[in-house]
């Protein structure tokens, strides 16, 4: 007879191990175990049949795979930890005896240095694996690069993080792999595509971070230790694959003077790329020949550019057209499936800002703008001298500057004269503007990048009300609200009518609203549709730049609401009538009399539409309930779960649509008056 199997000796009970048991098995302290887990990437598991593992106890416990822990037993780091423990005991003893010198010597000579190279290789067997996992690493390192040093965060760590981050940014700039960026309220998101992997990281705005509360910097420090090693190797690999020398030359003096990105000098590996070392971050190996040609051409004739400033932005358009662009496949008929389309190529990215010279005003965030502009091909970026070293120019009146990024409200009166510009050359804007220079707010850069084309700068003129900044990662699904589309395109049947009914306090202006919506949509589409660079400029280009922004502000607005003025009055009276009608209906309802049918107003039409929609919906609901009756319990629960998500999405979209309708209505009302 076979032996009777004992309970708890095989299967799930054997495959999982609690944390306490794991720590005991490894014979290390809990903090050391934590470090080991962080380094090795070992995480708890949730047993599928918990009861079998816990042997019936219901206490909340953390489980690890027994195999994982078994595997940790052979970890070289474990020996290092033990060594460290022994040395720290010796040091503690020396300190206890008051032998500070001994303690210092022990600490210096005997404390084992922990190397994580083998773990990097083990956790990321291929380079692509490492790239895939770079999101968290970059976010964390960029955060630490922006932290002030404290007792938990030594200055050494911070400078290492800064160094690694700058090196990575240099790679992104040189390889033109940045794709998207987004200004959120948390910080700035960047997305780069390296070797087919999308890497998304978040960089905080440069403010002092709040580090209070229950934040354990030892845990973060362990992660940082791992991530710095990882990013070091990743950077090495990235640099060497495009033929650059890895640790790029670091100019400590420039760094001291706030050069940040420019303190590093990227060099090619081969001997023949001497010319590369002349420029600060000229990409020697991968420099895009077209972009280079454009840059050379522009550098050669800065004077001519000055003369034909109005034409300057137009030029790149021609160049772009000459480039081999990816054709966009647009869906012509609704209902067709959309295919994922190839993203902008490197060449396109490299040449977006290539022909321009930017100047960053003092109030703009320099570091992100410098990074973005450089990553999208801009070679010449000047900034205010207060920002530190590394600028192409610190002279704001430099004639070669084509774009100035400004984030200050414009002065209301246009009383500036040219003499002002002469007397105060230091900070020109907003007292005077250079002719032929485009003044834009920082958001323009981001929106251009996300749509990978140059947008109309007049919408982003200083002091103008900016168009909403939208996340480039949201792919609207069916049933979700999409701010890019008009309300008519996405609303459910009868929704608008229902809304109108509810909003019975005001006049009904369905037709007007439709008009307004249409116009709004047009404006929206205008902004977002492919306005070729400089097209906006062409319209107003002949006029003065000062007028430019004002004109553009008012221009579409005037167009939009031209039609309303005549209608407005009649509409109001009509609305009044509708309200009276409704009042009468209510009264009749209260008294129980039937109201004789009146002349059909838009109001009643609305009601009819809504009623019809409601009836239809009700019928559908009934049918659905009938079908649900026949489901088995299991399936019904499943359906409930699915429907929960869908319902949530629908209500969310509906509230958003509702809000938008309200806003649009208020806006059109304000405009009508």
């Amino acid at each position, binding site marked *: 007879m076979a032996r009777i199997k004992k309970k708890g000796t095989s299967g799930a009970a054997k495959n999982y191990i609690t944390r306490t048991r794991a720590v005991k098995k490894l014979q290390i302290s809990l903090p050391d175990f934590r470090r080991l887990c962080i380094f090795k990437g070992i995480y708890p598991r949730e047993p599928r049949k918990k009861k079998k593992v816990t042997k019936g106890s219901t206490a909340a416990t953390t489980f690890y795979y027994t195999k994982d822990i078994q595997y940790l037993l052979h970890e070289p780091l474990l020996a290092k930890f033990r060594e460290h423990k022994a040395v720290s005991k010796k040091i503690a003893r020396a300190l206890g005896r008051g032998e500070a010198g001994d303690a210092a010597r022990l600490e210096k000579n005997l404390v084992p240095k922990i190397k994580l190279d083998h773990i990097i290789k083990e956790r990321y067997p291929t380079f692509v694996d490492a790239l895939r996992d770079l999101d968290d690493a970059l976010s964390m390192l960029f*955060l630490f690069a922006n932290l002030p040093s404290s007792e938990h965060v030594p200055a050494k760590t911070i400078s290492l993080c800064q160094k690694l981050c700058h090196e990575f940014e240099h790679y992104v700039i040189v390889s033109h792999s940045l794709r998207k960026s987004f200004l959120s309220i948390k910080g700035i998101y960047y997305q780069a595509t390296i070797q087919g992997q999308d890497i998304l990281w978040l960089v905080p705005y440069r403010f002092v971070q709040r580090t209070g509360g229950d934040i354990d910097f030892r845990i973060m420090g362990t992660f940082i230790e791992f991530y710095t090693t990882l990013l070091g190797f990743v950077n090495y690999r990235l640099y060497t694959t495009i033929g650059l020398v890895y640790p790029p030359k670091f100019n400590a003096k420039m760094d001291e003077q706030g050069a940040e990105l420019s303190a590093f000098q990227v060099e090619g590996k081969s001997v023949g790329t001497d010319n590369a070392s002349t420029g600060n971050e000229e990409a020697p190996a991968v420099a895009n020949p077209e972009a280079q040609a454009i840059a050379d051409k522009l550098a050669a004739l800065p004077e001519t550019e000055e003369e034909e400033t109005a034409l300057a932005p137009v030029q790149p358009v021609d160049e772009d057209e000459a480039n081999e662009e990816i054709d966009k496949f647009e869906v012509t008929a609704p209902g067709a499936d959309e295919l994922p389309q190839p993203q902008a190529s490197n060449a396109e990215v490299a040449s977006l800002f290539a022909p321009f010279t930017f100047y960053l005003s003092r109030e703009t965030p320099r570091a992100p703008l410098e990074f973005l502009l450089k990553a999208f091909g801009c070679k010449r970026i000047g900034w205010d001298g207060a920002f530190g070293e590394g600028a192409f120019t610190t002279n704001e009146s430099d004639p070669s500057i084509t774009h100035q990024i400004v984030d200050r409200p414009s002065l209301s009166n246009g009383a500036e004269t040219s003499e002002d510009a002469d007397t105060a050359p230091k900070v020109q804007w907003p007292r005077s503007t250079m002719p032929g220079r485009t003044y834009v707010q920082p958001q323009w850069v981001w929106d251009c990048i996300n749509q990978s084309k140059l947008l109309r700068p007049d919408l982003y003129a200083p002091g103008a009300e900016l168009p909403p900044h939208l996340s480039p990662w949201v792919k609207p699904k069916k049933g979700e609200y999409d701010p890019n589309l008009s309300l008519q395109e996405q609303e459910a049947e009868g929704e608008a009518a229902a809304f109108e009914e509810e909003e019975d306090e005001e006049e009904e202006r369905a037709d007007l609203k439709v008009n307004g919506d249409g116009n709004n949509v047009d404006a929206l589409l205008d902004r977002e549709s492919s306005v070729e660079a400089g097209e906006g400029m062409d319209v107003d280009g002949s006029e003065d730049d000062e007028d430019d922004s004002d004109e553009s502000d008012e221009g579409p607005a005037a167009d939009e609401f031209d039609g309303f003025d005549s209608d407005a009055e009649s509409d109001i009276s009509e609305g009044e009538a509708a309200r009276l009608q409704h009042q009468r209906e209510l009264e009749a309802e209260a008294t129980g009399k039937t109201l004789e049918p009146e002349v059909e107003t838009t109001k009643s039409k609305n009601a009819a539409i809504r009623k019809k929609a409601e009836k239809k919906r009700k019928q559908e609901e009934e049918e659905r309930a009938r079908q649900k009756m026949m489901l088995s319990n299991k399936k019904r629960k499943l359906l409930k779960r699915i429907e929960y998500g869908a319902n949530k999405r629908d209500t969310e979209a509906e509230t958003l649509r509702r809000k938008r309708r309200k806003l649009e209505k208020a806006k059109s009302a304000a405009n009508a008056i």
Partner: protein
Amino acid sequence: MNPRKRKAITREAPPAESDSGEELADGLLDGILSHSEDSSDESQDEDYDSEDSSVIEGLSDEDDELDEDEDEDESGFESDGEEQRIREQLRKLKTSDSSSERRNTSLNLGDGEEKGLEDQDDSLKPNYTVTTDANGNPRYLYKEIDPIYDSDDSAADVTNTIGNIDLSYYDEYPHIGYDINGKKIMRPAKGEALDALLDSIDIPKGWTGLTDPATGKPLKLSDEELDVLKRLTRNEVLEDGYDPYPEMVHYFSGVKEIMPLSAAPEPKRRFVPSKHEAKRVMKIVKAIREGRIQPYKPPEEREEDDEQIHYDVWADEKPRPEKSMHIAAPKLPPPGYEASYHPPPEYLPDKEEEAAWLEQDEEDREREFLPRNHDALRKVPGYENFVKERFERSLDLYLAPRVRRNKLNIDPESLLPKLPSPEDLKPFPTTCAAIFRGQEGLVRSVAFDPLGIYVASGGDDGFVRIWELLTGRQVWNVKLSDEEAVDSVKWRPDKETSILSAAAGEDIYMIVPFTILSPDVEQASRDILDAGWGYAASQPSTTTNGETKEPLGKWSRPGSRLESKGVLVQVTVRSPVKTINWHRKGEYFATVSPRGQSTAVAIHTLSKHLTQLPFRRLKGIAQTAQFHPSKALFFVATRNSIRSYDLAKQELVKILQPGAKWISSIDVHPGGDNLLVGTYDKRLLWHDLDLSTKPYKTLRFHTAAIRAVRYHQGGLPLFADASDDGSMQIFHGKVVGDMMENATIVPLKVLKGHKVKSRLGVMDVDWHPREPWCVSAGADGTCRLWN
């Protein structure tokens, strides 16, 4: 006890008695200096001096004197201590005798004595008072001790303020410096003249000036005695010539002893150089010459930020095997529109949403931030939770269990069964066509007559009423009982006759409502009912021992009042009857009275006026019973099971287990193969008798108990149930003749209309014999016709 007193003894007595000359002299000199000018100091000194020793008294006196005539006294202070002291005392004697200043001094002295006495008084008085404390015990309250720091303080030493200047500069002056008040400090008397005088006086040997208290003679001390006293004062051992620190004797020393401890000869190694050491030294020398041993250099400061050595870790990369258990950490989702610094205005929360968000617990919040609009980039503030969110992410990375979860990617439409549209399954009742009002209390039972013209109903008011279907008019009624409710009404299933059976309490009545019948139908009905009279009497049931048994059901005429209304037969059983069900031929009917244990189920034969009990004992409490529509089968439902019996063979055929807790009603499909069960636990169960003893379908669409279930008997595939939630549900239930296909059940319609009264809704339901109409009995006192 007096601290001053004790102090005086310890401090002042020794110099008086000691004979160490110079120290004493110094002390005296100091004393002189300190006491020179300040009279108050003097007096104080005298205070304590006077207390204990005359010698000191004398001294102080002498001080004063010296002050006054220092000029004359130039000599004697350098002389030997002992002699000097004696002389001083003599001088005192002398001065007290003569001299012009004597008066002053004596006056002083007198003052001093007086003060001393007072002090003594003070000192004799206890310096405490005795009181009683809270416990009644004596309590000593000590006065505050007055620590008097007197003369010999170091502060006295610096009376001369000339500082560190050689006194020789003052050789020509009568003074030697200045005190703190700027007054001259006069040069002390040298006493040369005095000394001359004193030297001339002969002092007997051993004179002390004290009197021996034992003899009264002057006390004389010998030299030895003085020596002992001197030793005592020095805390020395009294014995003469005692050495407290003798030289240490080293027993094992380098000194060569005359008699060595060991007689062994000196070993050779003591005087021959060691070859081994030479070898080792040479080794080291060689190593140094070869440069293997370097002179020690302190390790130079290594670069702290030891640059990591970078190389290509992925030089020989191999992809991870497919079957790896590793789950990569999920990436954070990219930000949505609402995270923008300048989002579209519809994403901004309004005031209520904002308040709700703020009120929520941090963990419950759907998103961790509140969308905000900033009209320019420069106005964007720092995000205060940045570090915290990063930290939480890192916690998630190493603490959160990762589970691979399949995303539900099911189209909800695919889950829903394809049901035939209700339009295709018409006809079925959808609306309320008529309401039969006029009854009081609950309507408990309702039934269509076999022709479908009339509806009979019975309720709590004890009436049986008959309604005309098409008009909704009440055409006939009779009050059967005053106390009991009519629990069940059923028509005899025969189209030629019209007999209504009704159960009220323990009585079952057979009614021929002749006022609404045509005469021949009435006659036929009466004939059937009357056929049995006398049958029971002619064949009395006897038991084996010949006794006449009490009949189970007593068949009788109900009395003239009821008979005039058409109630012709009354059957009385032993317990209240709840349900009546007729056999299809109208010959038998079964009644169930749940409370009569062994007599619960009874089968009555109409033609013989006979009542029989098919079961001697019944398992469980019977709820209802029904005949099979075509076979000789009989179904009895107890609370939680249904048994079917073969009446011909008289055996149990099947036990159905619907799994319900309490069955309320059953109905057998006209085809005979399916059974519908309604339960008080809200379930409607469809049993396929051929399939299994478990239900084929369980339908749970009611929120309250199901009271009644009915199949349509006239060939339409419909069935209905009535529930306490006030609604009836109509289903399409099609049974296919062959065994290959299961019955299809399609929900068709929920009929609502009856009001719920005291948690009772619809009590009964019945179908029209041909049309897709049904009638329901409600707890609100109405019946409704649905079509």
